[in-house]
């Protein structure tokens, strides 16, 4: 799967968060946020990431930009290993791999106007601004669908979706090569959402921007991404092409996701499909398949033996005992 044209190669990535407690505040257990995630990405490719809330999508993104130091595994960026690098050594890469954060509110400085925040990023990364800083900032703000007069406002003066777009503008301010976008359009109405997706598509076509695109909206993933990673409890359970998502989906969790996607027609109302069973614990991983407890087709073996991610056909790995 990996080849020399890959801009990013991630192998067996693990991230475990220690949980402290008790009077001595000792490490009592750990959250297994990522348990061996592997994938590779070609320049200009768009990789979708879907998965249950809490399965490690944001953690994966934060490891890629090295906001977290992964517990184990490797991240190769243009063949260069990022995991062991020190703060200083990472500097040249920071500019090239950027992230749009899921929660724009906590990632924007409340005391800085949009102009100040964007100027700071552009100066820090020494972005060339041939027509001047102000022109650069105003252009960016307009590209994410905000009015020019937004530049002199503070974060609290915006609506949720407007703040999200400021986060997008900030991530784009230093012209990254790889953009990790964590739910970038979920707070936006469909029209602005389309506008932002079109913008990302243009950047991809014009500058070969490579994207890791986390989203819960399968309609968006299907439209926008080339391939999709389906995650469950810190593992990839399926990786497939988006061309025929509905036809090719093999893992029961992927199928459950597709089945629970609400349909845009009030005359075609379906009962809410609520999966039975408990959500597994990330503190103590279950011995078998993590999805077995909620899986509608699980068999005895699924509860006791952990399936491995295996190629079911060309470029279509699935981790499930019941798929062949």
């Amino acid at each position, binding site marked *: 799967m990996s080849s020399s044209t890959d801009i990013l190669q991630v192998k067996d990535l693990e991230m475990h968060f220690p*949980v402290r*407690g008790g009077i001595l505040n000792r490490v009592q257990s750990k*959250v297994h946020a990522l348990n061996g995630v592997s994938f590779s990405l070609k320049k200009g490719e768009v990789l979708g990431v*879907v998965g*249950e*809330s*809490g399965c490690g999508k*944001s953690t994966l993104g934060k490891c890629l930009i090295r906001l977290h130091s992964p517990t184990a595994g490797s991240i190769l960026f243009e063949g260069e290993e990022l995991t062991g690098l020190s703060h200083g050594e990472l500097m040249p890469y920071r500019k090239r791999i950027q992230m749009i954060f*899921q*929660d*724009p*509110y906590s990632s924007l400085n409340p005391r800085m106007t949009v102009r100040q925040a964007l100027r700071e990023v552009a100066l820090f990364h020494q972005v060339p601004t041939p027509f001047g800083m102000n022109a650069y900032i105003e252009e960016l703000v307009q590209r994410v*669908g905000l*009015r020019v*007069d937004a530049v*002199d406002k503070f974060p609290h003066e*915006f*609506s*949720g*979706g*407007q703040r*999200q777009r400021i986060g997008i503008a900030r991530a784009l301010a230093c012209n990254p090569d790889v953009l990790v976008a964590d*739910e970038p359009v*979920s*707070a936006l*109405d*469909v*029209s*602005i*959402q*389309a506008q932002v*997706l*079109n913008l990302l*598509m243009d950047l991809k076509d014009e500058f070969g921007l490579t994207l890791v695109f986390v989203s*819960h*909206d399968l*309609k968006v993933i*299907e*439209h926008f991404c080339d391939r999709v990673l389906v995650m469950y409890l810190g593992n990839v359970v399926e990786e497939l092409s988006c*061309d025929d998502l*509905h036809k090719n989906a093999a893992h029961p969790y992927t199928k459950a*996701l597709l089945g*629970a*996607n*609400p349909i*845009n*027609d*009030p*005359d075609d*109302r*379906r009962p*809410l*499909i*609520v*999966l039975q069973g408990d*959500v*597994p*614990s*990330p*503190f103590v991983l279950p011995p078998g398949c993590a999805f077995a407890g909620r899986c509608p087709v699980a068999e005895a073996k699924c509860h006791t033996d952990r399936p491995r991610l295996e190629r079911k056909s060309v470029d279509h790995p699935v981790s499930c005992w019941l798929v062949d």
Partner: protein
Amino acid sequence: MSKTKTKPVLEVRNLSTCFKTDQGVVTAIDDVSFDLYPGETLGIVGESGCGKTVTSKSIMRLLPEHLSFQKPESRVMYGGLNLAAATEAEMRTVRGDKIAMIFQEPMTSLNPVFKIGAQLEEALSYHTDLDRKARRQRAIDMLRQVEMPEPERRVDEYPHQLSGGMRQRVMIAMALCCEPEVLIADEPTTALDVTIQAQILDLMEGLKNKFNTAIMLITHDLGVVAQICDRVMVMYAGRVIEVASVRDLFHNPQHPYTQALLRSIPKSGGRQKGERLPTIKGIVPSLFNLPPGCRFQDRCEYREERCVRDEPLLEQHGNRSYRCHLPLGGAQ
């Protein structure tokens, strides 16, 4: 619909909220009026920044008073009390207990320095007379109901240790634990995968069936609207521009903005690689510089001279209303 014959639980009339900013005063929502009936789910949709959150926070009187004010004619009638003019003490008996709200950005309303269990227990101490131990148990039960994995452990975690969707579910648990008469849910499921979303929507339906709770559901997901709302209110640039039953709205929108919004939904299947998505061209007018006529005029493909001159009123037509000189018509 028979529901319209019962008395609304919430009557919002001429609600206008203004912010004082460095550039002057802006009217973020302008003359918003609508009814909410017991046991119904009213969807609220509209372009980002159109005033959905400000409408809900104004009802709850949760906007900072030094930065914002409601115009004097604003009324929000709830059980004989005008919330727009109620005292802070009166509001405290209503907030959380009778009218609960799930916030769009969980981090703005969860306190980062307290464990989530403590925050849930505090809410319970206001609204129930459970003792300490029972409150903790109830908090754990609520977390389990919103599908939080290992709720016994999670109660002792801080917000930053949770994923985005888990924080959102803590908020939902907090709002549901008081069995409110009105639930205002601002994007309650945006950070959740669709299987957990189904679980949360199911919980909200349960609340509706058990306690006849009225739900105001703010969402950008028109699939969710189609599946669970009874009526829908569409807002644009601080104005209500259309209110209709969910079927009328989807099949027969009257306002050109509603139509354009529905057209922007990405279609499932039949994907063309690299195909651009339809958008609504142009941009919303600045709240500082609103045109004299219809607020959608610049972007409207049907615009005529009077649309530029006079702003249309929100008028009732049968059991729906819209604010347009040139409604789209079509089969009713």
